[in-house]
């Protein structure tokens, strides 16, 4: 018996016994419901066939389904299997420790105030550091083998788990915490019977997003010193202008994503047996003040300074803090850094606005209308795993090579965390409250305003934080993958070309601090809009 069940004993409204129906009718109904998930993929497939048959798009960009199928068969006959195995093993080697680390960090931050004071600012900064800029430094310590690749994927997988688990743990009802304390439950019991079960819905959301983050970085990573893996195949296919190979990889990643998504759903049904807790006031207040938050950054800075001063590291790879500071100053004075930053931020704001608006509204619609949810969410759940990178050829075909394509790229990146978090958040709202709302005959609008949105707010804000983060990373990525333009990402790539490490680090700092500031903004918004929970 878990503690959480004290709050409410009836997890889901008991199925009201209905009129006896014939069994086959029941089955047919079930089948039809399940079949809805296939409507959208089928529609997309026919659209693809139609577009290819009428050459609405160049056949090199949108190859015919039959060609993709032939390529798939041919690749399967060669060594596609080993590529898949290698990618999957890299994914799992990074995902499992990454998810555990994210969860452990979230627990540490939620249960230990000093740890939160100490680590939270550093983690907020860390989450924003663009991987692309870090690679030369990581290379020194990790080499160019698999450990580098796994470290980068792991880094990407930690963050979504951390953010969502943190939100979930924060929402553990205060009464239960007090009860647990009164009962003098051991730490282990509290962990396994209270915190983990209570935060499980959020943890599952985090797991879903960690999985997609890991897939995404897999492709980036397999660009590096690799001649195998699905990500490598995809990049290779694009480079060789054989987009049918890219489409095979997209289909493969989609299929694997679908399997994992189904696995997660199964897990969801198996482990999340506890009733959805009713949202109460926050147990943890935001911590402020003191020197604690500055301790770790100061230590890191000191370590960095010492390492460069005593030349433990090569100054060509890791610059001295002073050099970075000078590069930063120089870039701000001559306007190169500030102009780049301004361009990137403008682009980011536009893409983010579109992505968040779309994610929020579509997530809400899918959660509110069961039909729409069944129609859209399985397809979107699969698409989520497929890296935006692989859509680039199609994206540029539709949106051109200019600013619109970059904004679309950012919008897509921020859409998915927002969509998932909103949908899961609304679905996770306590059914008792919904029942109460029904009994009280609250209208749809009132239910939404007073029950669903506040109830899902916690998850939505966790999604927002991820959207802010991914949108920012995509802003940097868009400048890397698309036609060159002014922006902070381009600036760093240019500096990389000349191996001006001080400029790279200055850019990296600026990007991280901007990201952290945006994160603070997200937290501030959450704080303001969730004011009712701080009473």
């Amino acid at each position, binding site marked *: 018996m878990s503690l959480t069940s004290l709050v409410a004993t009836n997890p889901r409204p008991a199925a009201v016994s209905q009129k006896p129906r014939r069994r086959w009718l029941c089955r047919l109904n079930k089948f039809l419901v399940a079949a809805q998930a296939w409507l959208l993929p089928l529609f997309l497939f026919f659209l693809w066939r139609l577009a290819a048959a009428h050459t609405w798009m160049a056949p090199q960009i949108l190859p015919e389904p039959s060609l993709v199928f032939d390529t798939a068969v041919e690749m399967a006959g060669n060594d596609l299997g080993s590529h898949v195995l290698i990618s999957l093993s890299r994914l799992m080697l990074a995902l499992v420790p990454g998810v555990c680390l994210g969860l452990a960090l979230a627990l540490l931050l939620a249960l230990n105030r000093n740890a939160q004071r100490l680590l939270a600012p550093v983690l907020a900064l860390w989450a924003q550091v663009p991987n692309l800029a870090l690679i030369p430094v990581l290379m020194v310590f990790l080499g*160019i083998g698999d450990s580098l690749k796994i470290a980068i994927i792991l880094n990407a997988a930690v963050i979504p788990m951390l953010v969502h688990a943190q939100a979930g743990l924060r929402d553990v009802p205060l009464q239960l915490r007090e009860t647990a304390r009164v009962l003098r439950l051991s730490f282990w019991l509290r962990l396994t019977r209270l915190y983990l079960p209570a935060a499980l819905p959020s943890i599952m959301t985090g797991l879903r997003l960690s999985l997609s983050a890991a897939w995404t970085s897999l492709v980036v990573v397999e660009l590096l010193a690799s001649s195998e893996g699905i990500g490598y195949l995809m990049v290779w296919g694009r480079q060789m*202008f054989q987009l049918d190979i890219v489409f095979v990889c997209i289909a493969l990643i989609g299929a694997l994503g679908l399997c994992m998504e189904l696995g997660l759903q199964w897990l969801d049904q198996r482990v999340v047996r506890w009733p959805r807790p009713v949202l109460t006031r926050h147990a943890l207040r935001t911590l402020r003040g003191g020197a604690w938050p500055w301790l770790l950054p100061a230590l890191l800075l000191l370590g960095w300074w010492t390492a460069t001063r005593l030349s433990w590291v090569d100054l060509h790879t890791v610059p001295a803090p002073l050099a970075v500071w000078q590069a930063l100053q120089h870039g701000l004075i001559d306007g190169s850094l500030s102009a780049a930053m301004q361009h990137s931020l403008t682009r980011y704001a536009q893409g983010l606005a579109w992505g968040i608006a779309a994610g929020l509204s579509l997530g809400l619609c899918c959660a509110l209308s069961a039909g729409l949810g069944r129609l859209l969410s399985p397809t979107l759940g699969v698409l989520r795993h497929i890296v935006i990178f692989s859509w680039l050829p199609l994206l540029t075909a539709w949106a051109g090579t200019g600013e619109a394509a970059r904004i679309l790229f950012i919008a897509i990146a921020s859409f998915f965390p927002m969509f998932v978090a909103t949908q899961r958040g609304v679905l996770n709202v306590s059914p008792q409250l919904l029942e109460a709302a029904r009994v009280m005959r609250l209208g749809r609008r009132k239910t939404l305003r007073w029950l669903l949105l506040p109830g899902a707010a916690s998850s939505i804000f966790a999604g927002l934080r991820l959207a802010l983060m991914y949108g920012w990373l995509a802003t940097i990525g868009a400048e890397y993958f698309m036609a060159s333009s002014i922006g902070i990402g381009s600036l760093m790539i240019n500096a990389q070309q000349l191996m001006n490490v001080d400029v790279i680090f200055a850019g990296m700092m600026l990007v991280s601090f901007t990201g952290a500031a945006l994160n603070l903004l997200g937290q501030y918004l959450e704080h303001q809009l969730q004011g009712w929970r701080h009473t």
Partner: protein
Amino acid sequence: MSVAVLAAPVQVIRIASPDLSAGAKPFSGTNTVSLTHIRGALEKEFAKDGIKIEWSFFKGAGPAVNEAFANHQIDFAYLGDLASIIGRAGGVPSRLLLAVRGSNTYLGVPPDSSITSLKDLKGKRVALFRGTADELAFGRSLAQAGLSEHDLQIINLDWTAARAALASHQVDAAWQSAALLILRDRGQIKVPLSTKQAKNRQVTTQAGLVGTDEFISAHPDLTQRLINVLVAQAQWASEPAHRDELQKLLADQGSLPLALVQGEFDGDDWRFRFDPRLDDFIAVSYTDSVAMAKSIGLIRRSYDVRAWLEPRFVEQAITVQGSQNYWPAYDAAGVVSKH
């Protein structure tokens, strides 16, 4: 489609290029097209007709430029040999209109390395960006030394990652274009050899201006004027007296150290580098590249290079400008042939 194109007056000519800049200004590399871009020569030529020139620059150019070609988003592109071959073999209806030749590739090794020749690379870990023109140049250089890729361990790394890996001693050597010289000038690596030492210029990388069939056949007059401008720029660049000015222009535009640009041209036959003609040397080089690309699986179908070349515009431009005897005749090895 073509009727509609014929009917509509051209308002803009769209040209794409790789972006090799290390600064804020886009930079197409050390070639004729780049010089033309820097000086705004095409803009001047077409201003009187109200035709705009729209340049787009791509980092990691090949794939993006070929996609833009397939999407009908550009009319011309400056591309390295392999990228244009991949595009043509993939079904982009294009023609090669004008050549730029002899770009060098270099071998970089750590300062304490004992590698001095290609033979020393046996069994070593060499960073190479596969699927780019570097791969072909390296393959040819190895073949001249009697080696093949199987004799060494190739590590597929993009250019910046390869330089980082070389600087941090993760690989024994790296093979790439002149950007490698940045590390040499800082003393982080040495460059024991490059394609400059080879007598046969076929080991170097060729490049050129590619145009879509659609544009060329609909607007042969505009294409001719465009090529006229490029040939005039090529002739200006081929003049040794303009050497310093040219190098400075290129380095400024690309925010590159002047020494890097000088290093790339150092000791090369100046006129050879900027010879725009689609001569025997170019035909042999591209034919060989197509065969190589096919044999290592970079393209699925090979095609007839000589039918792909469209030399009439460049020949006409040379005749119009009376420069028939300006560039010497080069043989298939890129050496001045004596008649």
